[in-house]
């Protein structure tokens, strides 16, 4: 595999390969050009990944002068804490953090942060995906599946959102895809308002 270096003026840092593939799918859907999605999937925490991205070959040459650096991460249990952690990491990387999520700061480069799901105190990528397909006619079948499993005496999975997302994917014409790969296939209904913030963020990059 060729080692990755920064080759675009716009860089989007995300947490893992699921997010990378999913947002690459959304970028394709929006027909946006010149955005490179980078991840340090599981190798280090997001805060460290910010520093490492800034120091990747090509960042100073391509992004710093007039490009943009976007960061998307999960709110997890506390959206405010998630934003503060990114803010601190940006300061340590000598970059000017934006005043809040979904706003942009600076010019060389422009910096933006999106905490997902937007405007909610907590959550993760799978919550967004499920919200996007909630109107799908077969979605109630997924809920019914887990009710049935509980009634059969089996405990619910610890990460119910993830389990439901994978159950939904199991019903697609090509089952077994990962969350991110399903994004590339358009299984997460890009036309859902759930993705409006992400679309706005990516267009503004």
């Amino acid at each position: 595999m060729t080692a990755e270096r920064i080759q675009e003026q716009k860089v989007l840092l995300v947490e893992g390969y699921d997010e990378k593939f999913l947002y690459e799918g959304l970028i394709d859907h929006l027909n946006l050009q010149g955005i490179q999605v980078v991840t340090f999937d599981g190798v280090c925490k997001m805060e460290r990944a910010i520093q490492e991205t800034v120091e990747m070959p090509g960042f100073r040459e391509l992004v710093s002068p007039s490009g943009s650096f976007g960061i998307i991460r999960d709110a997890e249990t506390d959206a405010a804490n998630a934003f503060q952690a990114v803010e601190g990491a940006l300061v340590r990387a000598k970059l000017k953090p934006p005043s809040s999520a979904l706003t942009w700061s600076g010019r060389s480069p422009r910096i933006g942060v999106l905490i997902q799901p937007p405007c909610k105190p907590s959550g993760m990528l799978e919550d967004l995906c499920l919200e996007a397909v909630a109107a799908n006619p077969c979605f109630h079948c997924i809920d019914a599946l887990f009710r049935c499993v509980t009634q059969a005496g089996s405990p619910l999975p610890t990460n119910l959102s993830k389990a439901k997302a994978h159950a939904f994917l199991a019903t697609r014409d090509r089952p077994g895809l990962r969350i991110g790969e399903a994004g590339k296939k358009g299984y997460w209904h890009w036309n859902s308002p759930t993705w409006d913030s992400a679309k706005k963020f990516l267009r503004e990059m």
Partner: protein
Amino acid sequence: MLESFRAKNFKCFEDFTIKPLATVNLVTGLNNVGKTALLEAMFLHAGYFNPALAAVINVFRGVEKFRKDHEVLWGWLFSNHNLAATIELTGTDPADVKTVLKISLCPMSQVIEAGSGQEGLLEPSPGLGVTNGSVSRKLLYEYSDSSGQQERNAIWLTPDGKIVSQNPPTERGVAAHFVVSRKRFFEQDADLLDELTRKKRQNELVEKSRVFESRLNGLSVSTAWGPKMIVADLEGQPELMPLAYAGEGLTRIISMLLRILPAAGGLVLIDEIDNGIHHTTLESVWRAIAETANTSKVQVVATTHSQECIIAAHKAFASRLEYDFRLFRLSRPPRKNTIEVVCYDREKLEIAINAGKDVR
């Protein structure tokens, strides 16, 4: 041992500092960001007592003939070709002892100190004239360190194109070797093997080199083929074989080890270390360098363009008790005339490699 090194007004470095240096260091980056220039700066600094090295580094770059003009010969030493500037090369050791070499051009009339003068190393290109102006300046070397030691010397071009130094250089300070990427110095290699043999250490070289050529039984110096050169005793071969005829990789590895083994407390600078070496051998090369540098207490600074070489170095050092290795990536920000550096310690390099990121 250098803990940090600063180059001011030297070649592409207006003001550049590299730190913290380890025992073995690898410098990477795109073309034309100053990797070789950094080695040259360190070489001049280590050889502060010999101003002729300012001309020798041109030979390392393949420029062996020059016009009889101080500007042609030394002008490119100065950043932005600013001949009025003073080059300042500062090394700092782990005990914070600083050694500073200042290099500047001064009028021929400036009195340095008494000295007989000694003819230099390079011959001029024939047929090129010398104007009055071109020999009106000499290259002044001023050395000082934290202990108060100070030295001055100078070299200049004579009207007939010879390089003359104010005081003959007497070798002292730390041993410093430069392994260049373009040229092979067979005779110098033979001299080094002679010296190693005299100290009964040639077997160390043979043992380490056998990792790369399992048929190697011994190395010796011979003049049977004309010039003095190293010959190899290879199993299954009816005669000794001049090393010059062996593969580039083996010759280069032996050349490197010949310089690291005897340079106790010194500095070995290796340009494009992976040149001619197959990628599957790189980790063994680094293991040999790590071991030799550690036992001989030699600091190594090398350059590379190869990600495979960097990964091999990381693996070789990660398998040792002490990870005494650092990677530095040089880069030039767009539209700026400065060189920036990113230092990779073990953790940082591991993150980049494991995440599949380029570090060159």
